């Protein structure tokens, strides 16, 4: 038993050196690779990443462009109000059918400090569905990417002399 145990133990130790996992390929996805190769590749890529990050940091520090840096800082504070208004106009025009242009905007007020756009106008519909169109218009404004929230207007339908209804509205859009 002693001889068996000693030989078994010696062979186990020898096996751990001879049969190392690094020598055997592993299937990763559709490829068969050796672990050592993978680890070497990972080390090489991480070293390259560190070197490139350092090179970029050196570039940024040495770049003598103080005015460009000031411009970048100031530019980040500019609100693209033109794009916001174009977005509102696109939503408004989306309700046109043939000659009918049910949503009319009469007032627009942008406040840069509050980042808000207050719009007011009137929705008219000969079929009497002006409130539905208004609700859809407000939903359309909410879907604009630069808009964080839209206040809910007061909904009322005033009969028009020639038939149909009118829904005046005032909403405030808060920008992102």
């Amino acid at each position, binding site marked *: 038993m*002693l001889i*068996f145990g000693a030989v078994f133990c010696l062979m186990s130790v020898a096996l751990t050196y001879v049969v190392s996992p690094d020598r055997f390929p592993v299937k990763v996805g559709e490829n068969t690779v050796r672990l050592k190769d993978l680890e070497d590749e990972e080390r090489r890529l991480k070293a390259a990443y560190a070197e490139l990050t350092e090179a970029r940091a050196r570039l940024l520090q040495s770049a003598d462009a103080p005015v460009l840096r000031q411009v970048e800082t100031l530019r980040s504070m500019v609100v693209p109000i033109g794009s916001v208004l174009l977005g509102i106009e696109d939503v408004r025009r989306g309700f046109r059918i043939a000659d009918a242009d049910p949503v009319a905007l009469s007032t627009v007020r942008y406040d840069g400090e509050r980042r808000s756009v207050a719009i007011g106008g009137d929705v008219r519909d000969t079929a009497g569905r002006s409130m539905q169109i208004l609700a859809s218009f407000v939903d359309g404004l909410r879907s604009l990417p630069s808009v964080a929230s839209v206040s809910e207007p007061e909904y009322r339908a005033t009969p028009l002399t020639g038939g149909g209804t009118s829904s005046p509205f005032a909403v405030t859009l808060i920008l992102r």
Partner: protein
Amino acid sequence: MTFSPQTRQRFGVGCFSAGLLLTALACGILASHARLFSQKRDTAVMIGTQLPKLKSTVSLLAASVAAEQMFARQALAAREEQASVYVLPQSSPGPRVVKTLQELSLALGKLGSLRFEKLMFDPAVSDEGSIKKLTGHLTVRGSLQDTARLLTILGFGGDMMVRDAITPADQELFLRQTEASAPLSLPAAEDFLYLDLIEYASDPDAHEQRLLADMSVDTASALRAMLLSAGLADVRSAFTGIAPSLKERNLWPMPLFDVRSVTRDQDRWTVEFVTYGR
């Protein structure tokens, strides 16, 4: 030398116990080795799945650093000078704003219904450290569409290159998508971002075609759609029919134009803005 029966018995038991211990030790070594195999396999799978992303990141970073080095060598000084003279000038930004605004209102008047009415600057210039702020009031008459277009163009004030019109996150996404679907076009994609903005706006189709020429139809369509949704659609729609005259009269870049308020009264629009100097 003879041993007593008791000694022989104890020796035998001792050898048997030692043999058992060594066998148990050997089993422990083999079990641990088997666990090691399993762990190494899991490590290999983990590294193997993360490697492609790491390769892509390193590739993108290498292209970015190469482009930035090229820019630093060839164009940075020129852009810094351009910014110093036109975007954030040491003299008052007012005159350049006036010239560009008049050119824009003439062009938009021909293309639509916009009419320039009045432009005034506050006499006082406020100092904020190294930056001087000049407040102005602009009055125009026109439709919401035309006025919004004017404000969109003015919102690009200070932008000199294509990359200035796209957020850093969208630039990163564009480059990542290019690296994934057309890696050989990555340097061209970097160059595209450093292209002069008014040069691009004067003929956007030609510049985009140059970038996308070597790509498959599907890749080119996807990248073009990405660029348009990232902000170049606004550049195109704002500057169409206007960029060539701005370029010809050397009216771009213009100073930064920060709109503080807009008020509409029927077809009259009053815009309060701030522009900057040093």
